[in-house]
């Protein structure tokens, strides 16, 4: 039976997860099934073809395209050094000689007698794919990559920027509603993943960059500070390739929003442990959310295999986060699930649910405007 779709973000202390590590083009897998790998260890390698430089010899020599072969010094497939002569004409008077030199080091890939151009290709660039998380190789995808399995604590954020990194987890604030201030950041946080509370200001970001922290995890930021950080207004939420000096993960959203108690407690419990994080977010055509993975140390866990629970619709008692104004960011639990459509102040008739908050108050919220906090 179809049921109403309620998005959720996972916050769990124990889960077994798999991360597929895939090369952008076929290459060599460097590990084998069963190997233990570290987050910063290469697991596969590929050679990215070099850049191509077209050069129109016919134009430069002032000859017809189908004549260029007669002027070539280098042939198809030959290696060339930057500045080496590729082609030259042979005039009667030496002064009129024209030499065409290669603008790059590489090889002559092809030549065309229709257009008169040669294509030069730079040497390939080696690309190493890292393990990303400490774990075990459970599957090899020949020439493509591997799948790494790890038993870990997992926190999914709502939005992030910056790519994959890893480092020691450190909590810089004392409570989830405390904003992360520049004074919280100390020089010994270099290369670490710093957890803040409700908010991160532009000043704190600048300080984080100065100290060279690996990552920041906070409840919220202002959009204007994100714009300052990136240097442009982010239009579509497809991120992960930004280079701003650190990886940033928001657990709640935009604005000053206390981090969910459950998330804060979980991260606090793992202070000093190594974590892998990724800011990559894609909210379209396949949702990717940023994540914080804290692998269990080998031997710290025995006989537990906890896959993420499969959820079958929302139920009374589920912990939820309200994700739209006017109660944006508040956390409570589902106390009633009326099935009939109800009219909300906009006059739309929608499916709703009732949320009970810690102080005992209740509110009726459209089902589309809550998010289940998933994970045990």
């Amino acid at each position, binding site marked *: 039976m179809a049921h109403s*779709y309620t998005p959720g973000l996972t916050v769990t202390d124990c889960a077994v997860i798999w991360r597929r590590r895939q090369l952008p083009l076929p290459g060599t897998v460097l590990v084998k099934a069963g190997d233990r790998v570290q987050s910063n260890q290469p697991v596969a390698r590929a050679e990215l073809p070099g850049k191509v430089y*077209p050069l129109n010899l016919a134009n430069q020599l002032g000859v017809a395209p189908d004549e260029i072969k007669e002027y070539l010094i280098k042939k198809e497939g030959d290696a060339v050094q930057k500045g080496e002569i590729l082609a030259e004409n042979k005039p009667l008077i030496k002064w009129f000689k024209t030499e065409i030199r290669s603008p790059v080091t590489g090889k002559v890939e092809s030549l065309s007698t*229709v257009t008169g151009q040669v294509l030069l290709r730079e040497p390939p660039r080696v690309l190493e794919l890292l393990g990303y998380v400490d774990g075990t190789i459970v599957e090899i995808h020949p020439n493509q990559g591997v799948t790494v399995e790890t038993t870990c604590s997992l926190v999914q954020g709502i939005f992030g920027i910056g790519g994959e990194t890893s480092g020691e987890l450190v909590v810089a604030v004392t409570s989830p509603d405390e904003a992360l201030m520049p004074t919280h950041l100390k020089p010994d946080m270099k290369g670490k993943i710093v957890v803040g509370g409700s908010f991160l200001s532009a000043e704190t970001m600048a300080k984080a960059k100065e100290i060279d922290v690996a990552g920041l995890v906070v409840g919220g930021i202002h*959009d204007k500070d994100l714009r300052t950080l990136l240097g442009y207004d*982010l239009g579509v939420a497809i991120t992960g390739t930004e280079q701003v000096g650190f990886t940033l993960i928001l657990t709640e959203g935009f604005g000053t929003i206390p981090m969910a108690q459950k998330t804060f407690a979980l991260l606090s419990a793992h202070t000093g442990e190594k974590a892998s994080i990724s800011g990559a977010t894609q*909210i379209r055509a396949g949702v990717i959310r940023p994540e914080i993975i804290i692998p269990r140390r080998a031997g710290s866990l025995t006989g537990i295999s906890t896959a993420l629970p499969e959820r079958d619709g929302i139920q009374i008692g589920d912990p939820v986060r309200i994700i739209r104004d006017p109660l944006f960011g508040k956390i409570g639990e589902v106390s009633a699930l009326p099935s009939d459509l109800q009219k909300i*102040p*906009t006059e*739309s008739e929608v499916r709703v649910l009732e949320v009970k908050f810690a102080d005992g108050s209740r509110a009726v919220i*459209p089902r589309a405007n809550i998010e289940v906090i998933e994970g045990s």
Partner: protein
Amino acid sequence: MSIQEAGKSSHPLNVIVATDCGSTTTKAILIEKVDNEYRQTYRGEAPTTVEAPFEDVTRGVLNAIAEIEELSGRKILDGEKILTPNRAAQGDPRTGVDIYISTSSAGGGLQMMVTGVVQNMTGESAQRAALGAGAIVIDVLASNDGRLPHEKIERIRTMRPDMILMSGGTDGGAVTHVVEMAEYIAAAEPRPRFGATYKLPLIYAGNKDAQGQVKHILGEKAALEVTDNIRPVLERENLAPARNKIHDLFLEHVMQQAPGYKKLIDMTGAPIMPTPAAVGVIMETIARRDHLNLIGVDIGGATTDVFSVFEGVFNRTVSANLGMSYSISNVLAEAGLANIMRWVPFTIDEQTLRNRIKNKMVRPTTIPQTLDELQIEQAIAREALRLALIHHKSLATGLKGVQQERTISDVFEQQTSGKTLIDMLKLDLIVGSGGILSHAPRRVQSMVMMVDAYEPLGFTRLSVDSIFMMPHLGVLSTIDEKAATDVFVRDCMVYLGTCVAPIGQGKDGERCADYEIMFSDGKVVKDQLTFGELRLFPLALNQKATMTMQPAKQVNLGAGPGTPVTREVQGGVVGLMLDGRGRPLQLPADQLARVAALTKWFSAVGLYPTANKNVEF
């Protein structure tokens, strides 16, 4: 096999189930023949399941159909199979359907890269061919696009299109540039978006004299298909062969790679169409049937599609990053805060608004709960609609580069070739579709959003798609035009009414036009429309009235400044709207005056349930 042939079935089509697999939700509708007339009876919805953990689009389809089963009490599914045909002949009309059909834009739709030789000639023709086939064009490469050759190659390499369309040169013209582009593509070795194991589909529709060389260069590197030149001579475009090829390759290659689509293709009784192509079919059908000039818009979460038919010429554009959820933040970036705020009837500080918009972007499925949130979303929608139409106007043009014969009379009024085909004064109908328009709590909100965004001139009728079923009807019309037309007229199209907007500007309170409306019951209303005024008269669906307007001296209703016009106007669920706010529409620059003007207009047409107040945060 053509669509028509594929859709032919041996049994009559009395019960039809259709789905549209969108990027977020899969929407299913049931169409039944009742008393010799087709009606849409039930609808179901479920999340699209193209992505992990399901990675099988048919799961979402089955869930959406299961919802219809629950609501209608009809048995349609047998496990994972759709029961066809309907068992009426066996005495069990409540079991099975006669055909299942579908459209799809899941997984980001059909993403194409196109190439031409001259950017605003063959480059644009290729773009129009791809857009008309329902694609999103991710880049247009041309010999004169200003990029250096190695930059072009790098760009082709980094793009991961589903398909490439190559054009360039007129038949019999020079081949060098188009061969050069083929060489760049070959050097770049482009890879398809889905899967690394198959060759990228590439259509060559350029100078026919270069076909041999293009085959030689690209034959091994791509799944090359050659078709007729889209610009055989400068004066004529020939887009149909390339569009048909795009549809074929979409089904043969792209769809085969998307998760679960092989199963979906087996389930359907007619070829799956890209969603925008199906909507385009419906728009063209309406325009042809009623001899109309129309603009249609489908504003979604990620993209806004604009369709137009003017003097029989169909055009479609897609603004890939203008939408109401995934791309909402981009509307803010492109329109600017001031342009959005001009439609908001209260004050709100910039930081709060920016954060709210970003929160909608990261949680795209949320809905406005309070009135001020609704007003902000509808303000953003106006700007998304406006920007998408500007984009459409720039591409829906006559052919550029065509030699024009000039006479002595053109000396003072020379027009360049490639003028936009969109003439708002000749526009008969605006058709709106997409969540924010189809599901606005009051229909008048849809009408005002479109009027504000498009600023129609003179007399223009407006309508909306009732529950978003144009894609379904588009694909249905390819197999049974009567069924599609029946449902379209009775259940899909909701006529909102007519907007009458004189062209000209004046001070608030100055005379804009005198008018006389003669209603069908004999009632006559005579009054004056002043500048800065918005009026709404009830004129029900299927009712008509005769309207005579005598504009002020400098004001034009299409017949010339100060010239009176008498027209028959048609009603709708909203009515007859007289827009004296001036064209071009100007809003007061002063913040308080603007809020006051918006509040006055909104209450004049009953846009929102309560009077607005300044909202403090």
